[in-house]
């Protein structure tokens, strides 16, 4: 879904002359109505509700706002959310690159099925993924039991459980951003490198690597952005212990349930600002990963 966005299409009208533009404007009906409706709907559903959070938080005043977001429990939850999201995005970059490479370059039985499997975390509701992961990685689960028996490591109800859930939700982003770039990559450059005496590893690192760097960074950012806000797949497996396995979205819900609307709003505003910054960064990255491979 988000990965789809890498395929930005240049505006068609950019190529038209001003006379054609004038003609186009004149002849097609419905500009006022559709743009007006778009702006109205966008304002009512998205912009006004979002600004409500900021206005509510500004009513707190700086000092109260700062106090609300700097309690040890809030800071610990930010550390848990951001630390584990970074780690999950990093793991997704490594394995996502391998999955994309295998899907584009190799032929093997079951490849189509493997390709469809990549999209499953997009389509499977988070609560379903959450209870399933908690069961599998729980102390009696299919994977949780053998892992606990052999290594003594508990996964469910620890930070590792959060990591597993965040890897699951972020997994498609890296694959789906790297895949189209890899498909468009011309084999000629690799052949040229090989014929000039480069080893396969050198070719991959020096010729393919730079091409894949922008989409990998974009995929990392998308995966991270999704992981930071994720709630449904994490709450069941996390254990939700304050200071240890409590993620930021859960803390917002906890505050709401305790009728601490100010505390919840203050944390939400911090999350919103981070989301906006990530969205801007991702937009810039996607422009970069598209223009970064001009050859």
């Amino acid at each position, binding site marked *: 879904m988000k990965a789809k966005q890498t395929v930005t299409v240049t505006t068609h009208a950019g190529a038209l002359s001003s006379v054609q533009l004038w003609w186009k404007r004149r002849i097609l009906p*419905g500009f006022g109505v*559709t743009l007006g409706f*778009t702006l109205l*709907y966008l304002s009512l559903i998205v912009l006004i*509700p979002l600004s409500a959070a900021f206005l509510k938080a500004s009513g707190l005043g700086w000092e109260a706002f700062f106090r609300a977001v700097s309690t040890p429990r809030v800071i610990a939850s930010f550390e848990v959310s951001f630390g584990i999201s970074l780690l999950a995005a990093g793991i997704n970059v490594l394995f996502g690159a391998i999955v994309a490479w295998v899907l584009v370059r190799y032929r093997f039985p079951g490849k189509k099925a493997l390709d469809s499997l990549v999209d499953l975390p997009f389509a499977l509701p988070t*609560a379903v993924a959450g209870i399933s992961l908690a*069961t599998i990685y729980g102390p009696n689960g299919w994977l949780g039991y053998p892992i606990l028996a052999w290594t003594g490591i508990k996964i469910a109800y620890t930070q590792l459980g959060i990591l597993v859930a965040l890897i699951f939700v972020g997994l498609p982003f890296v694959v789906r951003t790297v895949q189209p770039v890899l498909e468009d990559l011309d084999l000629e450059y690799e*052949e040229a490198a090989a014929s000039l005496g480069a080893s396969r590893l050198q070719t991959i690192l020096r010729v393919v690597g730079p091409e894949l760097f922008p989409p990998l960074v974009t995929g990392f950012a998308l995966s991270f952005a999704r992981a930071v806000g994720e709630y449904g797949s994490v709450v069941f497996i996390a254990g939700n212990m304050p200071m240890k396995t409590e993620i930021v979205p859960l803390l917002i819900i906890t505050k*709401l349930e305790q009728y601490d609307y100010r505390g919840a709003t203050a944390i939400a505003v911090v*999350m919103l600002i981070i989301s906006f910054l990530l969205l801007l960064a991702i937009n810039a990255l996607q422009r970069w990963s598209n223009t970064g491979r001009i050859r």
Partner: protein
Amino acid sequence: MIAERARPPKNRSAVREPARVRLALVAVAVLFLGIFVFVPLCAVFAEALKKGLGVYLASFNDSAAIAAIQLTLLVAAIAVPANLVFGLAAAWAIAKFEFSGKSLLVTLIDLPFAVSPVVSGLIYVLIFGAQGWLGPFLQAHDIKIIFAVPGIVLATIFVTFPFIARELIPVMQAQGSEEEQVALSLGASGWQTFWRVTLPNVRWALIYGVILCNARAMGEFGAVSVVSGHIRGLTNTIPLQVEILYNEYNFVAAFAMASLLAVLALVTLLIKSLVEWHASSQSAVKEQI
């Protein structure tokens, strides 16, 4: 080895890794997706059917389960058409016309994807909740939005807001507006042009956007959880019912409800690949012409 190196490398082998490496990479990919995606998917059905088909089917014969299914269908039946109309309007304005601030508008449409689901629910509580801006007014007029169906619908519309628009915009932009101009100059009305020219041209993108929007609308958990109030039989959608049953240790029933959503996800992926297959065969035909 030395003899091999002296020969000019054959094209094929020069851009291929050794068989051992290839096998290892495929194994890593299969193992990674297997552990993180395939096993969780299978576990949903395995846990749902753990005590046999009879118990599985019996878990749907429950008034709270039926109410949750009905509410989920109702919410999707409102949210998806609402976002469909918006998606078509936004794509028409953005793809067919030039105006300043367009790229900002496209970014703003993406905004709901960047927001945490929990925060998406919270913003509606801040407006319509008892402590919110409109809270006193709503209470005075006995209108319930938060902890009621309207709040669930609003939160669902918010989280699924960009799906259809963002599938339509690039496709409509790529198609330009020549065909519409021809239709209009031949005497078709604006609506005729839209129904007979524009819509058929974007139908695959439209279907794609609608099924993704629908899957998310039916499966949304975080945002809906904040605004729902978890009133059994009244404000529980399927995902919320899954949570309640799971927290009550009623695992078979929880996974039975979850299996409905897993089937929905599989059907969504199936339609998605059918659409992709159609769209690619269509573009292949166009290229040949």
